[in-house]
């Protein structure tokens, strides 16, 4: 092997090399392709029909990608900013999490625009909660009601005091 020749000046080079001792064995079939880097025979490139953001840790998009939910609105702006930073940076992931939350508000606005009032209780699966965890649900609702009543009473008292 070339490498053996290359390192012949180093005594004992490679004597203990054992493919079965590859730390990922048997998860990985060692082929040596790693050393060819990104130079494999690439699959056909999918045509870009939607905006697809790509990690700055790779030179271009992968041969295939998903085209669902392209970035849009305010959340889209934040996502585009996030992708200026690497996967190793908080400036990538934290803005993405923020964008996800902004996107939730956009989703509700979108529903309303289409004349659909989202049934948040149904979306949270409260029908199942009522069926399988009725006492838990009643407890939750009671606690929420008590907290709201207390909050209302306190604010009333405070505003009364001010007057």
């Amino acid at each position, binding site marked *: 092997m070339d490498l053996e020749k290359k390192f012949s000046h180093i005594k004992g080079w490679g004597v203990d090399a054992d493919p079965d001792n590859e730390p990922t064995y048997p998860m990985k079939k060692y082929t040596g392709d*790693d050393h060819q880097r*990104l130079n494999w025979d690439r699959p056909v490139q999918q045509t870009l029909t939607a905006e697809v953001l790509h990690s700055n840790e790779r030179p271009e998009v992968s041969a295939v*990608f*998903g085209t669902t939910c392209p970035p849009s609105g305010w959340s889209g702006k934040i996502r585009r900013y996030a992708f200026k930073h690497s*996967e190793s940076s908080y400036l990538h992931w934290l803005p993405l999490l923020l964008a*996800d939350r902004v*996107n939730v508000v956009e989703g509700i606005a979108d529903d309303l625009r289409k004349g659909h009032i989202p049934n*948040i209780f149904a979306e949270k699966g409260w029908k199942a909660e009522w069926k399988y965890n009725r006492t838990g649900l009643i407890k939750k609702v009671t606690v929420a009601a008590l907290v709201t009543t207390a909050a209302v009473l306190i604010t009333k008292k405070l505003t009364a005091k001010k007057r």
Partner: protein
Amino acid sequence: MLAMNYRGPFRVRAEQKPEPEIEHPEDAIVRVLRSCICGSDLHLYHGLVPDTRVGSTFGHEFIGIVEAVGPGVQKLKVGDKVLVPFNIACGKCAFCKQELYGNCHESNPEATAVGGIFGYSHTAGGFDGGQAEYVRVPYADVGPLVIPEDMHPDDAVLLTDVVPTGYQAAEMGGIKKGDTVVVFGAGPVGIMAAKCAWLFGAGRVIVIDHIEYRLDFVRNYAQCEAYNFRSMTDPVVFLKKITDWFGADVCIDAVGSDAAGNAMQTITGRKMMLQAGSATALHWAINSVKKGGIVSIVGVYGPTDNLVPIGNVVNKGITIRANQASVKRLLPRLIEHVRSGYIDPKAIVSHRIPLEEVADAYHIFSAKLDNCIKPILIPPSARQ
């Protein structure tokens, strides 16, 4: 078509959306017969995975019938009944060639640290998933496998993820004959890992969780010991004690970022999201394995950081092995195991729910209601 639609943390619904189209010559369109909800979907559902966009359809465990194929597809034919591994893999890149099908470099533009996964946020490629009537399947000649005639459809759908993941968890443990193996998590993946640990020659298998009905299930299904961590003051001390104060030979994390059991991890990881979910199970795994032992991680964590006792990994000389399961690599062997009766995947299915009731299905699985182990969603077009 009808599809699951993500609206925000803890909010999903079934809604009409356009049918997927062939977007690449090697694509296929598959009409879904059944599709599961996975513990991994719960991380999305709980809002822990960055770049989970509103309007996305989840679902990476599904089987179905090929409805259409692109011009570049040579092996797969319209009408074939297939099971589709959760990893999207090209078969050509250096990683696929090394059978690391969960680490393909040609299926996810958005992140280099993970290959493409069906219905698993834009961080895993932005593909819509299989909790729908139809799904786009890229690299149709690589992943999908025609389901053998004699195979039960529930076995087939569980071979897309849960069985290979549990098996690989045990495999990565490098189990030697007679080893004591501790599995954290008695969800579908942990149950399967416990079952498979025996196949590698484990001498003792111990499962840890805090949901009593799941502990009962795994004790019976995987013929192992199972303990509730709520009933012990310190799970690490407990495990040391029952392993002659030595520690387990192998510890498997089959919990991931939604772990309970440590208030500090839960608050900083799951509530405030200052870490990529809570790493309680991994923490316990590292601290309860023997010196020189192996920790195998299949539990999923987010892409930022987690608080783990890395100093102990160094001081104890622990080997950590982890990956997304390489489903395609494992399928031939696992089909044999199902045929030989070594593994009975379908026995873990606890719920069959119409796709229309997807919101209830998610809540039941997430909140562990009605003794739920593994729910399957059936689309309306598969019920006629």
